[in-house]
């Protein structure tokens, strides 16, 4: 049983006109085996929250804490966080030319598991995980994310989660840009990993669509850099009906 606690988190980014505060006091606690949906309009700071948990150097934490089973996550380097059991499926996965997917996956698994996986088991494990996500085995020899379509990138993010077996996974708009088939495959990948582990999931999304596939235990409405309201799955239904207008005061953002 693990806990990821975010306490009064304030984060700013450097802009041309000086530092700009984006997160304004986020409080959130996720436990093993729970799935929390974070829903909010574009620009509300969802990716900033995800990157701050992962330790992206662009985001400056000015106040607050992130604790993994009481350990100070903010004091850890990016790679240490991953090895401690945190995983971020990125909204925009990065291309790394010349580094093959298979080399990358093996390096990452070796790092997070603390020892190199046995070759025979590993090959089988990767093949199985790729086939579960309906990824052509030929991708193993391609450069990391290079020339992948949006959907292929998202499948590979979920593939990495399945292989690295984190305690907590932050999925940042893993559903965006997917057609219905891809959404089904990706959701199944997440659900399979949930079923086979005690993972706690922070499911960041703009739309309610993915919640039909991945059932959240809790729903948090994220507006203007903080959690505006929390509730059960019924809160997502309300958002589906009425959009974010009750929280933002404008009609611009319509989740659908």
């Amino acid at each position, binding site marked *: 049983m693990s806990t990821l606690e975010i306490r009064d988190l304030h984060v700013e980014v450097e802009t041309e006109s000086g530092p700009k505060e984006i997160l304004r006091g986020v409080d959130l606690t996720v436990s093993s085996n729970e799935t929390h949906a974070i829903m909010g309009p574009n620009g509300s700071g969802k990716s900033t929250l995800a990157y701050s948990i992962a330790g992206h150097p662009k985001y400056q934490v000015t106040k607050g804490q992130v604790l993994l089973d009481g350990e100070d996550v903010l004091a850890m380097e990016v790679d240490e966080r991953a090895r401690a059991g945190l995983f971020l499926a*990125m909204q925009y996965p990065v291309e790394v030319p010349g580094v093959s997917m298979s080399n990358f996956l093996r390096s990452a698994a070796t790092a997070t598991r603390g020892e190199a996986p046995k070759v025979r088991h590993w090959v089988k494990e990767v093949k199985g995980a790729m086939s579960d996500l309906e990824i052509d085995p030929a991708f193993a020899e391609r450069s990391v994310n290079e020339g992948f379509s949006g959907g292929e990138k998202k499948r590979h993010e979920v593939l*990495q989660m399945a292989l690295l077996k984190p305690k907590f996974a932050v999925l940042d708009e893993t559903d965006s840009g997917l057609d219905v088939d891809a959404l089904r495959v990706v959701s199944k990948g997440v659900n399979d990993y949930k079923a086979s582990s005690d993972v706690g999931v922070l499911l960041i999304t703009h739309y309610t669509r993915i919640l039909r596939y991945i059932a959240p235990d809790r729903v948090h409405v994220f507006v203007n850099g903080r959690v505006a309201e929390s509730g059960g799955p019924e809160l997502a239904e309300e958002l589906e009906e009425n959009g974010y207008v009750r929280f933002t005061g404008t009609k611009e953002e319509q989740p659908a």
Partner: protein
Amino acid sequence: MTAQDSDLAGPVASTGGGTTTAPGSPVLDVDPGIKTASSPKTAPWEERHTSYDVEAFEVPRGREEQWRFTPLRRLRGLHDGSASVSSPAGVVTVSVQAGFGDSASDLAGSGTRLETVGRDDARLGDGGIPADRVAAQAWSSFDRAHVVVVNEARSDDEPLTVTVTGPGEGKVAFAHLQLRLEHHAEAVVVLDHRGSGTVAANTEFVVADGAKLEVVEVHDWADDAVYVGAQHLSVGRDATIRHTSVTLGGDLVRLSPVINYRAPGGDVELDGLYFADAGQHFEQRLLVDHSVAHCRSRVMYKGALQGAEGGTAAHTVWIGDVLIRKAAEGTDTYELNRNLLLTDNARADSVPNLEIETGEIVGAGHASATGRFDDEQLFYLMARGIPEAQARRLVVRGFFGEVIAKVRVPALRDRLEAAIEAELEAINS
């Protein structure tokens, strides 16, 4: 006109940029370099003249197109005739072995031999003629030349290793080497330069009709060394050359390969890899002279640079001149140069030039991109648990991967990878 637009989006330049909005996206410093009809400057090859005689060239002052990137003061007088006055004369030694690395052994059989010849040997010059003053100085000054003759189709499994060793610290030498593949000969050759001193050299690669040469020219000089060399590649009818140029060490290394096609059907790939540290000046000036019809050229050079804070910058120069002359119908050419700036205090100049005098070609294109080490890539790899030093190694190895993968001598591939890792360790420690 089938010249294609230059492809400016390289892996270095495009990663991050298109896929993430986070900052730290690489700085682009691109010189597309196509000379347009209205360009007032004469193309480099129009000013180019050739001669064996050093006095046919003026002493460079530094403003000349050919010399404008080279720190002349560091040439120790190779360019103005003073080198042999100011430094004692030495010799460059050349040895040839069969195999590479631990498995290398003395040559057996008569199909491949090393000859030491005088200046009057009629074969010298078959590869090409000096086109700058230092090359002409080398030609005017060498005493004995080395000729490696291959008159057999050697197995790929048994590369030749030609080791060229500098004259020693403080000494100057003028060298002449010819690697000669007779009709339909085949060889994989490692041309390994090492040692200390100041060297001006001409290296001829004479590849006869139907012959096939794969050569990796390694410049792994000691820190003090200055090497200025002209490579003359002569390509016979239907001959193939794969030339990989690797520059890892030396205070100043300047290489000027020229491709001379002698008859139709020539096929040349020039690959390059260079890794410059603080204070090093590595310069590559290529001329691919498509003077006859139906020849092919592919150029792919990749460089990494790492300066040191407060020290002299690491500096690399890459000039890629491709000329398609009027007679060269059916030419197919593409050239690419990419540079990866691992630290600040590093400068990579990259100038591709493509001059096309006939429209009847298969294709012609070029690309050049110089970018900073991409912090988004580093973040992505580290976010998967990979420690920083290893993540950097993965990215740099990936950058050079295409070049190293084409080297067909496994033990040399291992050595190049180890050399790159050693370079990287220097900044991570």
